[in-house]
């Protein structure tokens, strides 16, 4: 019985890790490709296919797998298979929720959050290294967008200045290629970095379950399945996130797109070189914002951006909550039944989120539609893309309407009051 439970747990952890890898690819397609899709440098389907292939290649590029989970954030001694499973479920569920709302949020932060929550539920606060949480998760989440905004802003400003007077179609043609090139580099970097996180988790699970010796390298089937899971997720395309990044923050042209993607690639590669790891998602989002800041005359929708920042800050506690709940349930039921229960919860909540997404689908056909907060009329589409519930959903429209009606009201008050004053004077 015990052996059966162990084997089952191991199998479910591997499957869940692959599922996380899938949501990771799916959630992060936009980081590389959103701007290329928005500027129509690439057709939406072509862009996700290119990104999927590059993620696949990237996963094989470098095999320096760090076989650690949340190193320096939780006490490595308390990370058992049930904890890993609960943490993965927390990461997946938060990834799916943010996808539903079209918010680009960091997949690795979701995973770390899930792990922290599961560890808290398992052994209490002693298992979490809080200094690590602050210095490796919270501070980078604040710093990454600022660095990226500065870099992309400077790049965009220089590009805008240097291309002044260059015929539009010439600059479009050139920058289209530059944009595709730099976006490809971001995709490749993503494949190399993120596929290896899942590989590391599966390797650790295999070692813990005794399926491979402790000094084992990554078995080939693990590399292959992780690469394929991420590529499949990428190809499916997180269209909601792509739409927010490409259309929601800034109206972007090819010059801005090229500057933003180059900035993303440079900051991501440099930050890992200098050992100050920044989230790909946070950097990519900051770069898009920066391309709006640096472009003379461009408008940045800070309202959309601030919703994202909030989501980034609650990623850790929210994913942690899911992870903790899963772990409590797992240990309360106990044994194989507890493990299966957690897995069932994962499937049920994923299905529920998917069903919710079908009500207002975003796919490759409508990913590039004009952003609704400026159109105003299409309230429904706002819900589809930002996923705001209830009152928030209709907020942009009344806001625009009241702005004009208030103006009219002030005018009418003015016209009423002037004769009134006149009559008093006379």
């Amino acid at each position: 019985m015990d052996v059966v439970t162990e084997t089952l747990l191991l199998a479910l952890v591997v499957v869940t890790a692959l599922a996380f890898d899938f949501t990771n690819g799916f959630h992060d397609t936009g980081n590389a490709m959103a701007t290329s899709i928005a500027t129509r440098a690439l057709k939406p389907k072509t862009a996700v296919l290119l990104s999927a292939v590059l993620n696949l290649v990237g996963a094989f590029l470098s095999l320096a797998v760090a076989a650690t989970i949340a190193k320096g954030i939780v006490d490595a001694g308390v990370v058992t298979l049930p904890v890993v499973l609960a943490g993965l479920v927390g990461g997946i569920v938060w990834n799916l929720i943010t996808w539903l709302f079209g918010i680009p949020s960091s997949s690795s932060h979701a995973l770390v959050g899930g792990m922290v929550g599961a560890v808290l539920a398992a052994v209490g606060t002693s298992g979490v290294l809080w200094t690590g949480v602050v210095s490796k998760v919270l501070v980078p989440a604040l710093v990454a967008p600022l660095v990226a905004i500065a870099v992309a802003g400077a790049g965009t400003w220089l590009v805008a200045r240097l291309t002044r007077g260059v015929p539009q179609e010439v600059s479009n043609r050139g920058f289209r290629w530059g944009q595709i090139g730099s976006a490809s580099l971001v995709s490749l970097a993503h494949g190399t970095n993120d596929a290896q996180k899942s590989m590391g988790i599966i390797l650790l699970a295999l070692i813990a379950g005794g399926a491979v010796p402790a000094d084992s390298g990554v078995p080939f089937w693990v590399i292959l399945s992780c690469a394929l899971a991420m590529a499949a997720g990428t190809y499916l395309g997180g269209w909601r996130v792509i739409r927010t990044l490409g259309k929601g923050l800034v109206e972007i042209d090819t010059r801005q797109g090229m500057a933003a993607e180059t900035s993303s690639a440079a900051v991501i590669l440099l930050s890992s070189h200098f050992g100050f790891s920044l989230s790909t998602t946070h950097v990519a989002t900051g770069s898009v914002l920066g391309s709006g800041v640096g472009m003379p005359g461009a408008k940045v929708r800070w309202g959309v951006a601030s919703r994202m920042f909030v989501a980034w800050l609650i990623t850790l506690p929210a994913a942690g909550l899911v992870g903790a709940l899963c772990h409590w349930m797992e240990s309360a039921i106990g044994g194989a039944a507890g493990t299966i229960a957690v897995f069932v919860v994962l499937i049920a909540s994923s299905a529920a989120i998917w069903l919710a997404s079908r009500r207002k689908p975003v796919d490759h056909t409508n990913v590039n539609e004009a952003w609704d907060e400026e159109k105003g009329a299409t309230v429904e589409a706002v819900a589809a893309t930002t996923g705001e519930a209830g009152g928030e959903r209709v907020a942009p429209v009344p806001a625009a309407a009241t702005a004009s009606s208030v103006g009219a009201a002030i005018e009418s008050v003015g016209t009423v009051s002037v004769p009134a004053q006149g009559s008093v004077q006379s």
Partner: protein
Amino acid sequence: MSDFIEWGALGQVLVAGLIVGAGIPALFALGLRLLAGTTTEQAPAAPGAPAAGERPASAGAVSIGRPTPARLAGAIVCLGVVVGAVAFGLVFLVSGGH
């Protein structure tokens, strides 16, 4: 506070990021500009010091002549640096430096 932020690493990322992340697009733009030329009149040769009076790019007939050898060479240098940087990034990825 310094426990939480590695200021040194952050500073390096910011400075290097500005040089590379902003410099590469700028070089790319410069290369493109040298290749394409500007609208026919008063093509400013010196980059970074564009002629005053912004002209809408679509105004009037745009003729794109062959670039002079000097411009062509400059463009090749600029774009070459860009390609080199991309290649360096690839090598960095493959070598597992991440």
